């Protein structure tokens, strides 16, 4: 086994284990921390693909920003066992059947799919460099400038919406 394969197996094991522990642990803070570890191992997978930019941005956005806000809210909410919402049996049953159906579908897809064997065409360009990524995203001729700007406008709208929702209405007299 090549070292890269060993690293891949270790990372995959960590990813799967922490993902399961995220769901299984009773304490919400523990779940959040397991999720952070899960995100880290996924960043490790990106690094195995030599996708440094993606790995770092993944760490910044998911572990550095989103999960910190998650932890924040969980800590401030002070969740206890008594606050746990009681779920009726029918929803649990529904969840289990959906999961079984989905997993059978996935297993079937895996079984019948043919692995891609052969060489990828290479252009000799380093698609990991930020310069290349910038031209791909923002070039107005061969890039994806318009969808990129649309995405940014979407995010801006979401942000303004959140601000509006959280703003207190002044009492009308």
């Amino acid at each position: 086994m090549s070292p890269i394969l060993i690293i891949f197996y270790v990372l995959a094991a960590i990813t799967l284990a922490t993902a399961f522990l995220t769901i299984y642990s009773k304490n919400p803070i523990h779940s959040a921390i397991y999720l952070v570890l899960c995100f880290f191992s996924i960043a490790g997978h990106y690094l195995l693909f030599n996708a440094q930019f993606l790995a770092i941005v993944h760490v910044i956005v998911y572990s550095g920003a989103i999960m910190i806000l998650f932890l924040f809210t969980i800590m401030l909410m002070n969740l206890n066992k008594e606050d746990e919402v009681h779920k009726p049996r029918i929803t649990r049953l529904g969840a289990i059947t959906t999961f079984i159906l989905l997993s059978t579908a996935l297993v079937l897809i895996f079984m019948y799919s043919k692995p891609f064997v052969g060489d990828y065409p290479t252009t000799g360009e380093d698609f990991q460099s930020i310069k290349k990524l910038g031209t791909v995203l923002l070039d107005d001729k061969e890039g994806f400038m318009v969808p990129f700007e649309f995405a940014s406008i979407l995010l801006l709208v979401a942000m303004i919406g959140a601000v509006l929702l959280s703003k207190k209405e002044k009492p009308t007299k």
Partner: protein
Amino acid sequence: MDSAFIIEKSIFIVVIFAVTMVMAMYSTWAERKVAAYLQDRVGPNRAGWGGLLQPLADGMKLFAKEEFEPNTKNRFLFFVGPAVAMSTALMTSAVIPWGDRLEIFGRTVILQATDTDSAILYIFAVVSLGVYGIMIGGWASNNKFSLMGAVRAASQMVSYEIAMGLSIIALLMMTGTLSLKEISVQQHGMHWNVFYQPLSFLIFLICAFAETNRTPFDLAECESELIGGYHTEYSSMKMGFYLFAEYANMFISATIISVLFFGGYNYPGMSWAIENWGVNIGNVIGIFALFAKLCFFIFFFMWIRWTIPRFRYDQLMNLGWRILIPLSIVNIIITGICILAFK
């Protein structure tokens, strides 16, 4: 990859690690000494000449102290908190160019652990992870004051990260690269970025103070008024790790400020020195120039600490969200206009 390369890099990484630790250690000494001098005292002067052995004595004291543990169910997380704080503080030094290059035994040794083209992003990723050490430690202490301290520290760091990132964007628009090595090379010959981006430097400096939790933004700890903040429940070397991480962070942010804005290892007359005295001597002077710059900034951190009183929490948030972020956006716009007009 040949084995010589791996050995070279390993030695270099160990050296950087040792230097970071020693600098952090002696920052504690320097802090006490500077504080004393600014207050007309002399500071520690018993252990060794001028108190130079004081950090060793402090470290030994911390190791020998009794270890208290709060009654917490999260013993493991209680351990993890200081470990995360320390490792994130030390990880950043991997991408910093400490010098240009040396020629030893016919080999060219690049004085940088790794030169990725996303070095600044890497630094931001590591800095944003530093919050975890504080939050996990504060939460696992099972103490509401620690938790409040942790939440205060974390919200402060998260808020100032935004302004920090935005202030850097203006600089990056000018340099056109994220690699710290290239940024250093571009500043060769007194083209220091601080002359072109003074506003960006100012915002970055303020945010660096906030990120390292130092006065005037040390609300997380409030040593003089509140109990210790997030590390109230910590004792012995675990608390030492938190304090040590603060000094390591200070060292790293001083380095980043000097690399980004003050020319890194460049000094006036560098090309002349390399031409006349050889590559090695010229670049060794460069390393010393970088250390002189970062030592000045460490001193500046301390100087500010003993000059300016602490902010109130609402003032802190106001400064971060209502002043620094709009200011850095304005800076980005001005930089964009200037680039369009002059290039």
